[in-house]
């Protein structure tokens, strides 16, 4: 059966080589698989964004390469690979070159924590959520470095805006997660999902959970630098913001990482609020790999909301962005944590 | 207010002006360039005239003289006059800048300067606004300017 495919591979490898080499080989195989997932996810989401935007805007969207333009982004990626890498002469070369890798490595590391289903889960540690937030906040460094090292004033403004934005909104994302952790009582991602067998956390935690979800969605938009929080790129103000001076594949790294980050934020939302890979009312919980289907459906749903935001809202100004965080989201968040703690203590959860 | 009333008001206010006799729908006045600033601030601050809106400032080459034409409007009464200032010096023409009285004149004077070569005394920054910074081929809007690249006729 398909369930045994992983053990089959394991035993096949054991028959070929000694045990410690098998472990290393498996790690490499998983890394390669995740790289593949990374690329496919990025390309698929770019395509999805363009298609969805077309529906919002009475356009057709990509429709020439492949069925429904599905391979358009692949073609774009190929074009970017073949392009010359240009950069500014006075850029800080070392930082300039290293910056994109910060972004993709962290996105890739975070991706390994995401459980696509009960069976497909590369890295399940007991401090999973904590690890996820810490790693993903390193990715900001890449954007910040890009802004600084490009030696371009537009990039610099973009980079500085990222710094401000991330310091602020990391807090809200973190505290919204903490609120849900208080309810779940664990940081391990698989356990958080298992808990939701009796009902998704957004149902279990009702009012504070819904508030936490709304805050998470707002702060998550900011975390993934999307409209209305795309001040980092802000094409009408800064041209292209931090990646003004990046071209070819270096630019593609940022572009893909942005969309993978979108996927990550949505997956965390799904894990924390909508029961991860679990099916509604447990209808397909016994079928192996059915979790994958439900997980993807839910994540796409959340991603659609993010895209809906993007194609509706205007952009904030930098001071309004900070006002929203420090005067609105943070105080509400703090009260919300206390509320959630009280609820858990008094046993008011459903 | 009709043109005649405006004319009477202005005559009472300032002497030494030449009024055109043409029957146009606005009053045309020629002002000696020494009197320009004084005259403009007078008609701007006068309660009955209150020409507070500089509609247009155009440099002009009369063939022999260079000059500036001001179109002033009163935002209160909506009447309009045309003021002409001439200078006969083609080599170093200069006219008083009026940007202190009408801030709107600031960029218009820059434009008139680069196209007609009229220097506006008192203007702080007479750089080239439309033409390239290193333009040295004369003043394009003057009648005696010839452009070898001119496409038409």
């Amino acid at each position: 059966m398909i369930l045994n495919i992983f053990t089959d591979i394991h035993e096949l490898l054991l028959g070929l080589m000694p045990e410690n080499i098998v472990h290393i080989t498996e790690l490499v195989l998983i890394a390669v698989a995740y790289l593949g997932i990374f690329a496919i996810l990025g390309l698929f989401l770019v395509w999805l964004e363009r298609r969805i935007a077309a529906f919002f805007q009475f356009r057709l969207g990509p429709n020439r390469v492949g069925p429904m333009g599905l391979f358009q982004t692949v073609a774009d990626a190929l074009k970017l690979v073949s392009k010359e890498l240009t950069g500014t002469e006075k850029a800080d070369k070392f930082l300039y070159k290293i910056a994109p890798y910060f972004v993709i490595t962290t996105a890739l590391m975070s991706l390994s924590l995401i459980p696509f289903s009960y069976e497909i889960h590369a890295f399940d540690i007991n401090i999973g959520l904590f690890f996820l937030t810490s790693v993903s906040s390193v990715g900001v460094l890449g954007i910040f470095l890009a802004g600084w090292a490009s030696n371009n004033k537009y990039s610099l403004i973009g980079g500085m805006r990222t710094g401000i934005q991330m310091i602020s909104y990391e807090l809200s994302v973190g505290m919204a997660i903490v609120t849900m952790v208080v309810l779940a009582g664990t940081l391990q991602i698989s356990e958080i999902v298992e808990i939701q067998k009796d009902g998704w956390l957004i149902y279990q935690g009702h009012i504070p959970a819904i508030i936490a979800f709304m805050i998470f969605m707002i702060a998550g938009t900011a975390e993934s630098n999307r409209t209305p929080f795309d001040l980092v790129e802000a094409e009408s103000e800064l041209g292209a913001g931090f990646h003004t001076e990046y071209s070819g594949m270096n630019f593609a790294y940022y572009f893909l990482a942005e969309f993978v980050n979108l996927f990550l934020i949505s997956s965390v939302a799904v894990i924390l609020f909508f029961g991860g890979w679990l099916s509604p009312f447990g209808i397909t919980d016994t079928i192996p790999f059915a979790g994958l289907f439900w997980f993807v459906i839910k994540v796409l749903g959340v991603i659609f909301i993010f895209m809906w935001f993007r194609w509706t809202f205007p952009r904030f100004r930098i001071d309004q962005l900070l006002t929203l965080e420090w005067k609105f989201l943070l105080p509400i968040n703090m009260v919300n944590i206390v509320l959630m703690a009280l609820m858990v203590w008094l046993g008011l959860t459903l | 207010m009709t043109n005649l009333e405006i004319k009477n008001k202005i005559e009472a206010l300032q002497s030494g002006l030449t009024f055109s006799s043409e029957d146009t729908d606005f009053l045309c006045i020629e002002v000696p360039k020494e009197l320009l600033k004084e005259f403009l601030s007078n008609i701007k601050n006068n309660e009955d005239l209150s020409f507070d809106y500089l509609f247009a400032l155009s440099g002009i080459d009369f063939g022999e003289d260079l000059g500036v034409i001001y179109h002033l409007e009163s935002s209160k009464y909506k009447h309009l006059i045309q003021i002409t200032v001439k200078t006969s010096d083609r080599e170093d023409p200069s006219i008083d800048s009026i940007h202190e009285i009408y801030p709107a004149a600031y960029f218009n004077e820059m434009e008139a300067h680069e196209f007609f070569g009229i220097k506006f005394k008192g203007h702080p920054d007479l750089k080239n606004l439309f033409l390239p910074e290193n333009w040295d081929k004369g003043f394009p809007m003057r009648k005696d300017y010839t452009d070898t690249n001119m496409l038409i006729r």
Partner: protein
Amino acid sequence: MSYFSDIINGTKTLLTGMRVTGGYFFVNFFTKRDVITQQYPNNIETLEMFDRFKGEVIMLHNENNEHRCDACTLCEKACPNGSIEILGDKAKDPETGKNKRFLVKHIYHLQMCTMCGLCIEACPVNAIDWGQDFHHVEYDRSLLTKVLNKPGSKIMSGIKG
């Protein structure tokens, strides 16, 4: 309390905005798709212009390859951009025996034309008119310079020279 009412009212305005765009999304996604853009180079064949469309200046020829232009150069004079040049010549008219001007080449520089229509208005014999061709893409500017009278064409009889 304005703190909370601000949040609620603000959220309400945002949701109204989302309802507008979302409404269009779902209408376009699930029912008939409304597309306002055009796939331009693909639909060249099917595109139809309005009958007054100003695409280019053409010279009208009849089936015998005859035009009405008598090389009077009024259009050349009317053109503000110098986009029309007329090469004419004089020859003896076989019928009357007088010297008569005839058209050699009516040169039209499409790249300079602003479609103002003054030449067509100026023409006393209605020799030129608007053409409906809208696709003027060429790789070289010189290819946009056209000769409007067809090779071998001659003036219609009855037009005064």
